């Protein structure tokens, strides 16, 4: 008997006698994981979170979450004799008096930034490939919650050192909280334990940052991974890949080795950044003082879009009946966040309502194969991107020598029209790419070989696309179009399509299902025949036909 067998028999047998896990664990070992670089984005988020837990635990051993006023006398001599909070003093202590303390602090901060960047990138991958579709809507909701919690967690974390920069962030938080109608002042006093800054906030943020939110995040990550495991991973289209299978390599040893390597790489990147790229040098900012500020104040990148919203929002304030509503601050600080997160959370359900698609999807969409979704996504990315950019408008103005107010006005205009332009452009690009794919399928790959026929005609020889490519190009499952609000053969209008909401749905459906049909015979027809193209026909008629369908609508009314 080999040594492997003996080890399994000993410990494994001991555990299995008590837990009966052999069958489950065997399935865990043999689980098939498909391979694609974009599947690693979520893993970055997972592994940076583990790095955050490890380095964060180290930091808690030395950090003092206290706002008690102390006079500093320590290794950073420039601040000797300066009044500061115990939190700030202990952060200096971690940085200058604990070996490896600065490294751990910097790894913690870099990992936090990578954590949120990875969540965002992962989410974009999920969105643009349609991985949120049935059956994965619940996991999408968990993901949106994780993003929101991650932002709050990050903000709470970088506020803890109580330095001038993070204190200014908290001051802005106070201003935003005060703008909440009716209860804003009360909420602010309850959060801060009185007036800003008070003496309670850092200890409160601390417990939120090290226990409450990480606990929730950990539980949600567990649920997120369990659902991924249970539902099996999605895969990109390819030869032999369908909605009924999953193609890849087993967890043990392949996926385990790859993901282990990935963890080491990510840790290496965090450590490398923390070695060579200084982050959050709080000793240069100094302790917080509400009367002082440094110029070029910038939050961590994931708060930048909210900062940008605050910067570009006009000075709207409504005074009525002895009350004041700082509408501009309220919109920029809270509504934008709420609307974007709610929109993200609802999107899978809206899309399903619009398309009426209740099928299970395990093969991912190529972004071009869902032009409207891709266009909506790019509109969202543009909206976020403009807000984020204007979050640093003072730096843009300075380094590019542009008038500061122009950057603000640029932001105000582009945040509205930018997403519209992005939507239109993206949709056109996607449809163009669909045409290209279609041409490839219809005409094949050009070989560059010209032959002359006996009658003197020159033609280029094309060969059919390779099987692997063909599988990708024809992977699109076209969506059925909802019938317009017109009577059926018996003169009875479809009740679902008759209401205002129903008409909206049909209209959106026709926008969403806009696509360049694949060349015939791929089972993509809608049954009403309007998609069937005669060979060699242009794809154009597909679009006017959609309008024709809606045109009879008025006649359906008595």
């Amino acid at each position: 008997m080999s040594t492997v067998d003996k080890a399994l028999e000993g410990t494994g047998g001991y555990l299995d006698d008590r837990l009966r896990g052999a069958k489950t664990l065997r399935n865990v070992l043999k689980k098939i994981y498909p391979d694609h670089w974009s599947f690693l984005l979520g893993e970055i988020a997972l592994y940076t979170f583990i790095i955050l837990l490890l380095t964060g635990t180290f930091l808690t051993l030395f950090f003092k979450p206290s706002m008690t006023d102390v006079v500093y006398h320590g290794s950073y001599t420039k601040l000797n004799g300066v009044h500061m909070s115990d939190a700030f003093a202990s952060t200096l202590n971690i940085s200058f008096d604990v070996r490896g303390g600065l490294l751990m602090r910097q790894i913690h901060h870099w990992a936090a930034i990578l954590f949120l960047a990875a969540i965002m990138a992962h989410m974009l991958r999920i969105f643009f490939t349609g991985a949120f579709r049935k059956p994965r809507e619940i996991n999408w909701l968990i993901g949106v919650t994780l993003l929101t919690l991650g932002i709050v967690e990050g903000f709470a974390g970088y506020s803890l050192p109580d330095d001038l920069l993070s204190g200014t962030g908290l001051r802005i938080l106070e201003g935003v909280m005060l703008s909440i109608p009716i209860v804003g002042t009360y909420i602010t006093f309850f959060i801060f334990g009185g007036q800003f800054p008070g003496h309670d906030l850092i200890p409160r943020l601390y417990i939120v940052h090290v226990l409450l939110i990480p606990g929730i995040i950990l539980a949600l990550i567990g649920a997120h991974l369990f659902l991924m495991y249970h539902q099996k991973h999605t895969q990109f289209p390819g030869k032999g890949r369908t909605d009924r299978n999953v193609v890849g390599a087993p967890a043990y040893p392949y996926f385990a080795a790859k993901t282990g390597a990935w963890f080491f790489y990510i840790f290496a990147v965090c450590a490398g950044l923390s070695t060579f790229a200084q982050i959050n040098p709080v000793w240069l900012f100094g302790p917080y003082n509400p009367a002082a500020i440094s110029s070029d104040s910038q939050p961590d990148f994931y708060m930048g879009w909210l900062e940008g919203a605050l910067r570009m929002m006009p000075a709207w304030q409504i005074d009525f009946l002895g009350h004041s509503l700082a509408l501009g601050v309220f919109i920029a600080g809270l509504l934008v966040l709420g609307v974007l997160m709610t929109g993200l959370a609802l999107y899978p359900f809206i899309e399903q309502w619009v398309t009426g698609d209740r099928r299970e999807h395990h093969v991912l969409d190529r972004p071009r194969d869902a032009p409207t979704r891709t266009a909506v996504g790019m509109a969202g990315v543009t909206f976020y991107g403009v807000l984020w950019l204007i979050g640093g408008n003072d730096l843009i103005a300075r380094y590019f020598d542009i008038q500061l107010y122009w950057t603000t006005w640029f932001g105000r205009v582009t945040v509205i029209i930018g997403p519209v332009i992005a939507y239109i452009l993206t949709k056109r690009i996607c449809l163009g790419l669909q045409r290209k794919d279609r041409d490839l399928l219809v005409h094949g790959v050009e070989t560059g070989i010209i032959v002359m026929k006996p009658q003197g005609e020159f033609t280029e020889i094309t060969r059919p696309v390779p099987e692997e490519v063909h599988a990708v190009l024809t992977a699109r499952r076209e969506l059925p179009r909802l019938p317009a609000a017109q009577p059926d053969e018996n003169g009875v209008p479809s009740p679902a399509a008759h209401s205002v909401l129903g008409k909206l749905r049909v209209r959106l459906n026709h926008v969403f299902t806009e696509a360049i049909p694949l060349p015939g015979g791929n089972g993509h027809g809608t049954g009403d025949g309007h998609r069937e193209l005669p060979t060699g026909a242009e794809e154009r008629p597909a679009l006017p036909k959609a309008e024709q369908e809606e045109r009879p609508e008025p006649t359906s009314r008595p």
Partner: protein
Amino acid sequence: MTEQGNQPEDARASAGGEHGRVTRRRVIGTPPPAEARRLLRDGGAPAQPAPPPKPRMLPADPANPERAKRAERIVATCFMISFVASIAFIASYVIFQVHSVDRVFRSNLGLGLSMTVAFLALGAGATVWVRNVMPKVEITEERKPLASPRPDREAFAEAFEEGTEASQFVKRPLIRRTLLAASTALAVAPIVLLRDLGPLPRTQLRHTAWKADSRLVVLGTNRPLKPAEFASPGGIITVIPEGTDNDLEALAKAAVLIIKFRPEELLAPTVMNWTVDGIVAYSKICTHVGCPAALYEHTTHHILCPCHQSTFDAQRGAKVLFGPAPRPLPQLPITVNADGYLVAQSDFHEPVGPTFWELG
């Protein structure tokens, strides 16, 4: 594919229950061939030839042993580099001491670099291992539909209905409604507990630490000021009420900018009675979200908040010229006391800082 092992495993489980010896021989993941087990259970001598091995899911060896051999050496080298780097990390911890900026940076470099190399080499080794030493496979696994089979759902529904009926929950509204009332009250109760998180705001946001005759002292040095000491037009100083230099709550509302103008430069709506010899005092706390509006452009007399670029006209009562701030910076009434020092006439006449609901 995953189904192929079910039958033998179940059989083995029952066998294990009968014979402790067999249980000990059980091997997770790689069950012994059913034939061999049967022989053991019979207790007979293993005389018969071993059955043919089961088809493998994964090949045991890579297709190209030469290449795998080369890769193996690379993997081992990577792991050795990682080993050395980890030792270097421990050495760095011992060698590089801290307690000053320069030494901390050296320590950070030593620890960080060795740690980076340790992880990088480990990752690289694992990558080469999985890509070039392990045999390549691509396996197709069927998906089962996620929805439970119809009978399972029905069985669940039955079980649930039976349970509900047995509980009498539906039949007895008295229990149902009182339980609902009880749980609602219990859910509300913890919210009450949060009341003592902070005091009620009352009118605290309307007042600052400024009082009549509070001297204006310079932030940082706590030096009181005489108008003559602040004589050059275009100058700007941050001042605070005397005795508040370590009271952050007071500073958060009471920080003030004083700016020196030639008297004729000051224009309405600046309140002239609240100025001294062209010295005007404005709240430094931005009316947008409370950052200190610290930047001053003395050619245009603009006060700029560095956070969100609200711009105020210091010449004209700090009215808003641009940006998201909805209100001017409140003006602090100042005068000179008997000793010739700049003092406040009173507190601000309106709340400073961000707009709040009760502002009115």
